[in-house]
């Protein structure tokens, strides 16, 4: 009998090792009915002993040489919030609050140079500290201990997963933001004369970049009150049907804002592509090179401003 008890206790301890994290079910934030009273009990215990357990946790963090980028005071302050949030989520199963907190925390510490392994590490340490505390309290009645752990483990695993995922996603979001900023820098919309914008497009255009270009240009038209836009595609790496469509859309959208678009740098090959996809080149204002395009633009602007003497029988 005793051997059986010991064996089960060993198994139980093994199964709490951090390497066996169970991924949470999607969007599950409800706590199963049967575990509610148990959770309440262990949460009460964790709250009662919060000071001591938090200190234990902070000590372990320092021992493991985690969060070296932060000062002791900062670690303690964050430890307090994380601990309280952790226990709260154990109780309510409301993961959204924890997600929000995880994102908020990540937003603060990523710029400080905290790495993913550190964040995962400290959450797992907390998990361990709390688990050990539960062992200590309930070890006399291992059946109760098992039931307590049955309640605790899925909840704790979900928390660890949530925080880790939250951190990684925040990181990805920041990287995307930076990429966006780089893209924006690499495609300036230039105002060279009053009412005239030039958009030189260089390099590869993927759908995302194409869309960003269009949005930037449209905002630029509004801000600069541009009447003519010269889009130069001399430097565009490859023009396929998708990119050509984006170009056509950009021209059409610009017109809706009252701006005329002149496309320059159109090679015979690209012209062919456009015709093949059904673009009516007769409707698109095209000029050979950028210089010619600017001159045409100035002419258009001059034409609009000066009093009209010549007959206006233009067929474009």
């Amino acid at each position, binding site marked *: 009998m005793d051997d059986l008890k010991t064996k089960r206790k060993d198994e139980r301890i093994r199964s709490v090792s951090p390497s066996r994290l169970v991924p949470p079910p*999607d*969007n599950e934030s409800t706590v199963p009915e049967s575990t509610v009273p148990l959770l309440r009990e262990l949460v009460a215990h964790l709250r009662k002993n919060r000071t001591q357990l938090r200190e234990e946790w902070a000590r372990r963090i320092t021992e493991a040489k985690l969060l070296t980028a932060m000062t002791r005071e900062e670690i303690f302050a964050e430890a307090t919030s994380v601990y309280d949030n952790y226990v709260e989520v154990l109780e309510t199963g409301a993961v959204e609050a924890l*997600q929000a907190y995880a994102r908020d925390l990540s937003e603060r510490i990523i710029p400080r140079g905290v790495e993913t392994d550190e964040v995962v590490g400290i959450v797992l340490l907390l998990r361990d500290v709390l688990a050990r505390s539960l062992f200590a309290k309930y070890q006399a009645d291992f059946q109760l201990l098992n039931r307590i752990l049955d309640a605790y483990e899925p909840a704790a695993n979900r928390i660890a997963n949530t925080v880790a*995922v939250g951190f990684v996603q925040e990181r990805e979001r920041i990287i995307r933001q930076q990429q966006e900023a780089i893209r924006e820098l690499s495609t300036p919309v230039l105002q060279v004369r009053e009412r005239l914008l030039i958009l030189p497009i260089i390099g590869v255009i993927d759908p995302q970049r194409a869309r960003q270009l269009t*949005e930037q240009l449209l905002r630029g038209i509004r801000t600069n009150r541009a009447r003519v836009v010269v889009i130069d595609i001399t430097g565009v790496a490859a023009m396929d049907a998708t990119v050509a469509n984006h170009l*056509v859309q950009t021209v059409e959208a610009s017109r809706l804002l009252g701006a005329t678009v002149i496309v320059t740098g159109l090679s015979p090959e690209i012209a062919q592509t456009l015709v093949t996809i*059904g673009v*009516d080149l007769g409707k698109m204002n095209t000029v050979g090179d950028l210089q010619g395009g600017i001159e045409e633009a100035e002419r258009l602007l001059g034409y609009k401003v000066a009093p009209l003497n010549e007959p206006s029988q233009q067929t474009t």
Partner: protein
Amino acid sequence: MASETVVSINTDVDVVVARQKGRELANELGFALTDSTLIATAISELARNIVLYAKHGEIVIKNSLVADKVCIVVVARDKGPGIANIPQAMQDGFSTSGGLGLGLPGVKRLVDEFHLVSDVNSGTTVTIKKWKR
């Protein structure tokens, strides 16, 4: 917290209500202005189809969280005449001047995911999704 709004579509006034609700939810979720405009426009078109062809229907607007990515889901449902020839309805003449037929290829371009189920006997359900970038 997941939220869901159901707008009953019967008249052209409801079209405006539905798209405004869509815009509201998109703003709440922090979608960029361009994206929330795309969503509102898509809802407007789908709601309008319901009024024009089915007379009655509903638009369900909800948010969804999958692997921590936020998305707006819009379901446009009706028990109208249904679409007899779906491939034809989804055919895209890219240089189309706007507003012919159901405009479904256009709606598809506005969103990230587009699903169409339609039967001549039981009606039409269009489900669209847009992810927060």
